[in-house]
Every structure is written in C-alpha cells, then in structure tokens.
C-alpha cells in the first residue's frame, strides 16, 4: 500500500515497543487456581459453552435411557416414576441448561471479537452469570441421581405440580433452580444488549453490523421481555406451594390456566430465542463457504426482527385444546402463520447465497451441518404450520407427532448450527483446528441417526401414541416404529461421540490458531490475542476483511484505533448506538474473586431455600449481596482525563448520563422489572376475567381506608422529589458532607415505608392471602414493588457510603444516578400498583 493511503489510517507506525507489552500485561489471563477469577470473554465464554455442551451430553444420556425403555412394549427397565423424572430433567436441561446458555455463550465468546471490542462492557457480570449457571445447573441436574428430580414435565403445569399432587422438594428444585438460572440468563442479556449497541468499532453503523450481532441483539431483547413472565410464574407457584397462596387453585378463585398463559408467554418466544442466534450463525457461515456476500442482508434483518416480535403473539397456540373461545384461538393461529413468513425469507436468502456462489461453494464440515440444518429445520417448520392449524392440533396434541415436530425444530434449528459453529469458530480459541475427517463422520452419523430416530415418531404419533408415557402395550402396532427410533438414537450418540473424540484429539485452548482459515470477511478472523485485536479497526463495509485485504496487517501493526492501554488498565471504545461514532473510552474491571464467590453464595442461597434450610439460605444470600457490594465498590473508576485513540479522536475516560453504558444497563434492567410487573398486571386482570363475580369473594373485608394508599403514594412521591433535589446538589469533588448520605437514607426510608404502609393497610383489614386468589394477588403487588425497592434502597445506601469515602460527587456520580433511576422506576411502579389495587375492580368493578 502506498504511503499516501497509509496516512488515512487513524494511527501512524511503527508503534512504540512497550504498547504491545502493556496490552499483554493488562489483559493477561490468570494462571492456575486463579483461573476462576478470569473475566476475559474468550476464557469464560469457552467455559460457558463447554458446560452447556456437557449438559447436552448429560441430557442426551437421559434420552438414551428413555429410548431404551421405549424400545419394546411392556418394558420394565425404568419405573414409571423414574421415567417422569427422566423426561422432565431431559426437557428442562435441554431447554434451560443447554440451548439458551449455549447460544448466550456464543454471544459472550464471539461478539467482542466480531465487534473488535476488547471485551463486553460488563465482564464481571458475565463471569457472575456464568458461574451462577454452572453451579446451579450442576446441582439441578444431579437431583436425578437422588430421586429428587421434578416430575411435572418441562413446563410443570399446575395443578399437577401443586403440593397436593407433587409433595416433596422435587418440584421446588425446578422452581427455584430454573428461576435462578433465568436470572443468570437475564444478566447475560443485559450485557449483550449494551455490548452490541455500544461497543461496536467506529464506523460500524447498524447497516454494517454482522448478522450474528443483529440476531444476538434481538435474542437478548426477547429474553428481557419473555423471561420475566416465567420468573413471575415460578414465584407464584413457589409461593403457593410454600405458603398456600391460591393463585392456581380453582376452588379459591385461582386458575391453573394462568400458569399456562405465563409459561407460554415465555415458552414460545423461548423457541425463537434458541433459534434466532442459530440462524444468525448460519448467516455468517453461509457467505464464507460460498465466498459471496449474504444475499438479502436487509431482508434477513427484517426477518429476525419480525420473528422476534411475532413470536410474542402466539403463545396461546400451546393452549388450543384448553377450551378458550374460538376467536381467541384464531388470533393466535393467525400470528403463528405470520411468523412462518420471516423464517421462510431466511431460508430463501441462504439458498440464494449458496446458489450465487455455487461455483465457489465448499463442502466442509461447517457447510455440511448447515445443509443438514436447512433440511431438518424446513421439515420441522412444515409440521409446525400443520400443528398451528387448530383442527389438526386437536388431533395431534400431546402425541408423538409433537415430540417429532419439536425435535426437528430444536435439533435441526439449533444443534446442527451449533456443531457447524464448533467447527467453524474453533480456530478462534484453539491452537489447532478440528478434524475435517472426523467431523464428516460426526455429521453423517448425526444426520442419519436423527432422521431415523425422529421421522418415525410422526407416524407413531398419528398412530395414536401419546407422549410422556413410560411404556405401552405391545399389541398396538407401535413396537417396530419405537425400535427404529431407539436404534436411531444410538446412531446420534455415536456421532456425538466422534465429535468428542475430535475435541480430545484436536482442541487445545489458547492463542495462535490458524488465521482466517475459511477466508471469512468479518472481524473475528482478524489476528487475535488475549486483548482481542491489537488496534480497533475503522469499519467501512459489511465484510471488511474482503474489502480491505490489508486490514489484518494494519490492525496488527496498531495503525487503527486504541493500539495501546492509555489508562494503564483494561479499556475499550464506546460508540454511539446507531452511527457508531466514538464517544468515550470505557475503563473495565479485570480479574477478581468476587464474581465467582458471589455466584457460589447466590446459588447456595437458592439451594438451601429449596431444601427448606431457611436460616442458612438467608445467610448465604446475605453473603452474596455483600460480595456483590464489594465487587461494585471496585467499579466506577475515576476519570483519567482525555486519551487520544487516533484518527483525531480525543475521548473522555468517564461518562455519566444517557451516554454512559451503565445508564443503558439500568434502563434495560428497568425494562426487565417492568416486564415482570406487566406479567403481574396481566395475571391480576386475567384472574378477574376468569371469575369476575367472586373477585373479591363475598365476605372479604372492605378495602382499607384511603389514608393508606394516599400516604403510601405521598411517600413515593416525596422520596422521588428528594432524590431529584439531591441529584442537583451533589457537592464538588473532594467536598464531603453528611447531608448527602443523610438525604439518601431518608429517601430509602420513604421508599421502604411506602411499601410497608400498603401491606399494613391490607393486613389491618384482615384480608387473608391464603383465603382467596384475590387476597393473594393484592399482596403480590407490594411484594413485587418491595423487591425493586430493596434493590433501590441498597443502591441508595451504597451511593451514600461512597460519598463518605470520597467516591461519589458532582462529577463521579454514576452510583448516584443508577440509584436514582431505579428509585424513580420503583416509585412509579408502586403508584401504579396502588391505583390498580385500590381502583379496580373494587372501586369501579
């Protein structure tokens, strides 16, 4: 390249020697036992994906046991009770411990590389989420060995899962265990949203973002809106099991269908939560294999967004047979048809890309798995459209046809792309590539085995075999089909085994793997080290490596942005969300014990509560909170002045307000909280529509006097005003006044007081939460607000303490701003709850 062109690069070379050494030192991965303190996305991402794969294997072994039991009729290999545990743990593990974590792990692992960021914006949060998942997941899975596993199926319908029909702790392991894992998934989602929107390289506008980043953005947004619904559901069910609040018991005004609504409002999007990232991966692999830019980039973005949205409008199609009015079914059947269109668009785009590059298209292991995916997923989509038709579903519901359908979608739509991913991206984290020869064996065994296992199940189902039966009489003509399925399952297992052998022989974690072995066009195939890329490229197209073959050399020579570590710590560039203009340099935390320990104690707290060790559980939870505080105490590093990242950009190293990444994270967190509250709002109205005549039931006490809600609202409003006032009057740096913490303590007291007053009001009327679903719902509102208030109070006190230690003032105010944001949100939610509970249906109903 000529020197005139070189001038246009953000930085000039050669760079001083020490820069590279600084980067290496700052980003070094801890060694030995301290490896658990690591927060680097490649390290924890690999752990994450490794553990997810372990769960795939474990749940797969359970599937083999089930298939052995079903191979012939009247079999007695496992008991009925154990079979119930087997399919519940298999389904739950596959969905919650394998599929979602696996794609989230790919996000953590691949996104920073694809966006040429040094790391995601909250590395310790990802570490926390991952460790929580590893510990919680392993404990949950091990219940199958102690006869403690839940038996209610992966969707745990009440009334079957109420204490009356499911005594013992088994169901509680599901409720608390999975509820906890979901919190970890949400933490990861917050990370991904902020990461994709704010840590893209300069110049990578929305229109130039890799499709995988789009897919992960939508994936994370879906988690944020979908998971709270099931978190609320598990809370309600656990409260009913533990304290007898009758949310789901019909005789006291509850309704077990409420669970189905909440569960499927999460459960259907869940399917796309699993599928969209996989589709995103395919959209990255196909262009490389065809050496052709993706045909219809814009259409694929549209398809991803449309799927994400529409998938929230079809949850009722899982409830077609529950006696809901026909027109309601039609609404959701319509959405189920609409959602098929975008999936079709994507399939055509991939085929068109392959066709456009057919002369160059290479049959490698990743492309085989992609082709297998296209074949299997399309078949699964077709049976999906069949069961979305209400009359057909009446026939196929709860039969093996459904089992066949969803394994086609899940294994075709997610497992095959995942294996393609393993082969395609292994060189990013491994010194050696995986073997093409073994990979082809793995593919053909899995592909043939899959179809042999699951294709016959369509017929078994149409022949009338229900799902979730531990055995069947031998004279119904189901034996041969089942035997074929069982044989196929072992062929799949052989394929997975070959892959594991390949891993053992060839996967070696570390840097220095082949560089861009597939000739890809995207940034993750730039030269990489622990610090990600040496300098952060200026991006001008969707396939920067194809359009500028010199890019790897330029980046490696440090000629692009931020070729060094100017603040002496870990850092990355934060850009604007739409146009990707550089805004500031984010100082990131490094390795530390707190995420791991906090995760261990959080998991401990949940598990101890599950086995009813309340005292120990609370102690463990408290420790976890203390550790989190210790961890956040080390964040929010002070400004290091401006730094020069090259290209004429002198960026600040501290940011507050709507431009800062922590503000964004808080806003996303508030979206999570409001999704939870909206689910509650829906449940409240839903129970009313189920039995408007007994809501509240005759003989319930009159509502409390208006003094209570008005007083409570006044406290919320007063506290918010106080926070706003304080925010304007934070002292200059180095000035410490006791007024700040005092104000924060008063605000905290007002918030807590507002919640307490509302609860008190209802208690004083004698309303009993165990007597009717109405009473239970009324108390639930302040409990939910109380949860948010608890977090806001802790944050207020934290900000006050930091001020006293000189860590919070007019300029360094992020801890205060975060507390204030959550405070306003909580107060608003509290007031909304007051209006709802006191206004409807008692006042106007």
């Amino acid at each position: 390249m000529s020197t005139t062109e070189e001038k246009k690069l953000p930085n000039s070379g050669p760079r001083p020697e020490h820069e590279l050494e600084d980067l290496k030192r700052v980003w070094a991965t801890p060694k030995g036992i301290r490896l658990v303190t690591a927060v680097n996305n490649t390290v924890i991402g690999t752990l994450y994906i490794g553990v997810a794969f372990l769960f795939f294997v474990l749940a797969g072994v359970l599937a083999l046991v089930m298939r052995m039991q079903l191979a012939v009729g009247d079999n007695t290999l496992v008991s009925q009770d154990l079979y119930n545990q087997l399919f519940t743990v298999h389904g739950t593990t596959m969905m919650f411990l394998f599929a979602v974590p696996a794609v989230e792990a790919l996000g953590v692992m691949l996104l920073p590389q694809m966006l040429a960021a040094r790391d995601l914006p909250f590395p310790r949060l990802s570490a926390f989420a991952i460790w929580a998942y590893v510990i919680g997941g392993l404990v949950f899975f091990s219940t199958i060995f102690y006869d403690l596993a839940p038996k209610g199926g992966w969707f745990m319908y009440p009334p079957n899962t109420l204490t009356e029909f499911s005594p013992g702790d088994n169901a509680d392991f599901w409720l608390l265990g999975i509820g906890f894992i979901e919190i970890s998934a949400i933490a990861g989602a917050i990370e991904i949203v902020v990461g994709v929107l704010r840590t893209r390289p300069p110049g990578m506008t929305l229109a130039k973002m890799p499709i995988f980043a789009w897919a992960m953005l939508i994936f994370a947004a879906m988690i944020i809106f979908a998971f709270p619904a099931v978190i609320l559901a598990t809370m309600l069910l656990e409260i009913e099991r533990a304290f007898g609040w009758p949310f789901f018991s019909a005789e006291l005004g509850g309704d077990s269908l409420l669970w189905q609504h909440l569960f499927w409002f999460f459960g259907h999007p869940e399917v796309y939560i699993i599928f969209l990232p996989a589709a995103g991966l395919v959209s990255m692999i196909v262009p490389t294999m065809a050496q052709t830019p993706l045909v219809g980039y814009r259409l694929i973005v549209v398809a991803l967004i449309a799927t994400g949205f529409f998938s929230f409008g079809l949850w009722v199609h899982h409830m077609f047979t529950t006696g809901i009015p026909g027109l309601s079914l039609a609404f959701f059947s319509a959405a189920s048809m609409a959602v098929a269109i975008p999936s079709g668009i994507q399939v055509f785009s991939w085929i068109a890309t392959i066709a456009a590059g057919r002369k160059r298209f290479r049959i490698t292991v990743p492309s085989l798995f992609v082709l297998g995916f296209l074949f299997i997923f399309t078949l699964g989509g077709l049976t999906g459209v069949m069961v979305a038709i209400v009359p057909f579903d009446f026939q196929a519901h709860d039969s093996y046809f459904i089992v066949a359908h969803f394994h086609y979608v899940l294994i075709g739509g997610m497992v095959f792309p995942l294996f393609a991913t393993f082969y395609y991206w292994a060189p990013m984290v491994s010194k050696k590539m995986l073997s093409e020869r073994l990979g082809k064996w793995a593919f053909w065994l899995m592909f043939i085995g899959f179809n042999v296992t699951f294709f016959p199940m369509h017929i078994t189902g149409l022949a009338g075999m229900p799902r979730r039966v531990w055995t069947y009489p031998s004279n119904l003509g189901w034996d041969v089909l089942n035997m074929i399925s069982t044989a196929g399952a072992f062929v799949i297992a052989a394929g997975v085994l070959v892959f594991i052998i390949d891993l053992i022989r060839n996967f070696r974690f570390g840097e220095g793997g082949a560089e861009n072995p597939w000739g890809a066009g995207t940034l993750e195939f730039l030269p990489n080290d622990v610090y990600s890329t040496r300098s952060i490229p200026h991006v001008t197209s969707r396939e920067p490596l194809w359009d500028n073959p010199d890019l790897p050399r330029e980046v490696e020579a440090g000629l692009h942005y931020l070729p060094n570590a100017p603040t002496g710590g870990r850092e990355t560039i934060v850009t604007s969300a739409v146009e990707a203009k550089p805004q500031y340099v984010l100082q990131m935390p490094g390795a530390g014990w707190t995420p791991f320990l906090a995760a261990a104690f959080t998991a401990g707290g949940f598990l101890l509560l599950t086995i009813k060790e309340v005292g120990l559980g609370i102690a463990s939870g408290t420790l976890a909170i203390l550790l989190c505080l210790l961890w956040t105490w080390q964040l929010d590093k002070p400004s290091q002045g401006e730094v020069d990242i090259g290209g004429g950009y002198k960026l600040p190293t501290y940011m507050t307000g709507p431009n800062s990444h922590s503000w964004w994270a808080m806003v996303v967190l508030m979206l999570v909280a409001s999704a939870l509250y909206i689910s509650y709002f829906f449940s409240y109205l839903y129970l009313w529509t189920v039995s408007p005549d007994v809501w509240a039931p005759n003989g319930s006490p009159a509502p409390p006097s208006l003094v209570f809600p008005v007083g409570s609202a006044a406290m919320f409003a007063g506290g918010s005003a106080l926070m706003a006032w304080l925010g304007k009057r934070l002292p200059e740096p180095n000035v410490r006044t006791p007024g700040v913490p005092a104000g924060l303590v008063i605000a905290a007291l007002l918030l807590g007081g507002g919640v307490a007053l509302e609860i008190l009001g209802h208690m004083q009327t004698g309303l009993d939460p165990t007597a009717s679903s109405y009473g239970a719902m009324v108390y639930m509102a302040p409990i939910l607000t109380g949860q948010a208030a608890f977090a806001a109070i802790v944050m207020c006190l934290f900000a006050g303490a930091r001020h006293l230690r000189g860590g919070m003032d007019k300029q360094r105010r992020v801890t205060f701003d975060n507390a204030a944001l959550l405070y306003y949100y909580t107060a608003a939610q509290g007031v909304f709850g007051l209006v709802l509970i006191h206004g409807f249906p008692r006042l106007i109903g």
Partner: protein
Amino acid sequence: MVGTFVFILAGPILWAIQLTAIYGSQSALCAAGIGTSSGGGNALVLWSVVIASLIPAGVATWAILAPAASYRLLAGERGDAAQWGFLRGVMRLLTGLSILAMAYAALGAVFLPECASLR
C-alpha cells in the same frame, strides 16, 4: 436514538398494540358477558376488533407512505444517506409484514362467532 429504534420497529409495535387491543377487549367482553347473544355472537366484539385493527393498520400505512415525515416525528434529524436508505427499507418491510399479520388476525372476527368455544 430511541426514536430511531421506534421508527424501525413502528410496524411490529403497532401489531402488538392491535393484538393486545383485540385479544384484551374480546376476552374481557366475553368473560363479563357484555353483549353476547345466545349463539355466542357479539357485535360489540366485532366492532372493537374492526376499530382496533383499522387504526393501527392506518397508522402503519401512513408510515410506509411517508417515511421521512414519520422519521422526523420520532427521531428528528436524519443521518447520512446510506444509513437512511437502510433504516427506511427495514421499516417499510417490517411494517408491511405487520399489516399482513394484523389482517390475518382481524379476519378471524369476520368468520367466527365472537365468544363461542369451538367445541
């Protein structure tokens, strides 16, 4: 910034509003038994579905026809041309799909008794 995302997502947001409105009003009216005839028909539901579909569909059509005006309304100043072409294209396609989905959903109300169970 938020405005830009609302602009892109205008269609799906309108679709969500439509679904909430039609499903909500239908469930509430049928559950409360307001206006239901003996055969399970309910003209009130029919009309609320029609109105709750036409308004968002109308707004969506306007967004497709006048993207520049709707962008100004939601997000203010436009960025560079390439970016705008992308945003507008994505918005139009998404909104088109959403109108289709709204039509699918509303059609049910024309053919089916509003409050009856199918079996």
